[in-house]
């Protein structure tokens, strides 16, 4: 099994910094870093208007489905999808083998500027994630704060 990636304060600050800078450059509404499993790793920008957890899960599925279709038609250089909307548009670009950057932006903002700065942002995000993944595996997982008491009922059924 691969080592579980852990994000420490430093990683989160770096990712936040990159995403905030990207939002300032593009005027985009929200930027999310998600992994292939659909997990939300980091985000910046508007988080009240949108259900980012669900968007992350669906964007990951949509990206991977389109990537698979691209493979079936022998497209070797697939790395992004663009959903054009009337109000908000979405751009998803591959970061590395495991992660993607999702950008939600007002449709009046041109996709060109988003694509241009996203290409730079993903390189930075990839570097931050690589640093997190390469951190000494011997350090193990710090789950000392995890108290898994009451093991029979993590989820309780509502009384009828």
């Amino acid at each position, binding site marked *: 099994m691969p080592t*579980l990636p852990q994000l420490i304060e430093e990683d*989160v600050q770096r990712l936040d910094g990159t995403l905030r800078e990207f939002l300032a450059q593009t005027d985009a509404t929200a930027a999310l870093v998600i992994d292939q*499993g659909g997990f939300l790793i980091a985000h910046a920008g508007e988080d009240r208007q949108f259900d980012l957890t669900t968007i992350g*899960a669906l964007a990951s599925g949509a990206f991977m489905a389109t990537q698979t279709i691209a493979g079936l038609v022998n497209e070797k250089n697939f790395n992004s999808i663009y959903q054009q909307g009337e109000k908000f548009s979405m751009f998803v670009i591959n970061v590395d083998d495991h992660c993607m950057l999702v950008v939600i932006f007002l449709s009046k903002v041109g996709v060109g500027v988003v694509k241009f700065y996203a290409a730079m942002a993903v390189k930075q995000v990839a570097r931050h994630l690589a640093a997190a993944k390469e951190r000494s595996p011997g350090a193990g997982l710090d789950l000392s704060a*995890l108290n898994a008491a009451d093991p029979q009922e993590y989820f309780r*059924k509502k009384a009828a």
Partner: protein
Amino acid sequence: MAIINQATKELQVKIVYYGPAMGGKTTNLVQVHDHVQTTAGNKGKLVSLATSSDRTLFFDFLPIEAMTIKGFKTKFQLYTVPGQVIYNTTRQLVLRGVDGIVFVADSQYEKMPENVESFQNLVDNLNTLKLNIAEIPYVLQYNKRDLPNAAPTEYLDYLLNNREVQVPSFPGSAHKCEGVFESLNMITRMLLQKYINQAAPQPA
């Protein structure tokens, strides 16, 4: 692969409900969504990407947070796969990043070949992702126990739980919410035990 965010004290875990078509995977998620006791805001929306006849097309998705785990904000993402044979590529996509599996078998006698085929398909798809069923926590849920033609659980165990290490199995009637929470709590327990064991210092 679970995400552990030490900075925000968050643990994110992905559980996939797998099994033959019409076996009750989506019903499990619907029942969890409808009946789980949560504090405000800890249960997300149930998203279903389904056909007009309510057959799962891509996946169902339910984000949820466990109540009793302290210290970490433990977020669970529950997914189902489409059971129909033709959607195998979709099942492979949904399995990416999986941490734990609830295999929902259909207890009816005539569904046994489909149960066995689906379980083998799970093993094959995990292998495609370079994962081994022996290393992934999973539980079995023998669903539709309330139907008159349900096979004995011993027979289902013989077909599906006949490996070197037997995994927990639960009888269920998902549409009555029987066996649903038992399966979910057990897979959660197995996952947390795995992470806690991985976190423990290894002997020199």
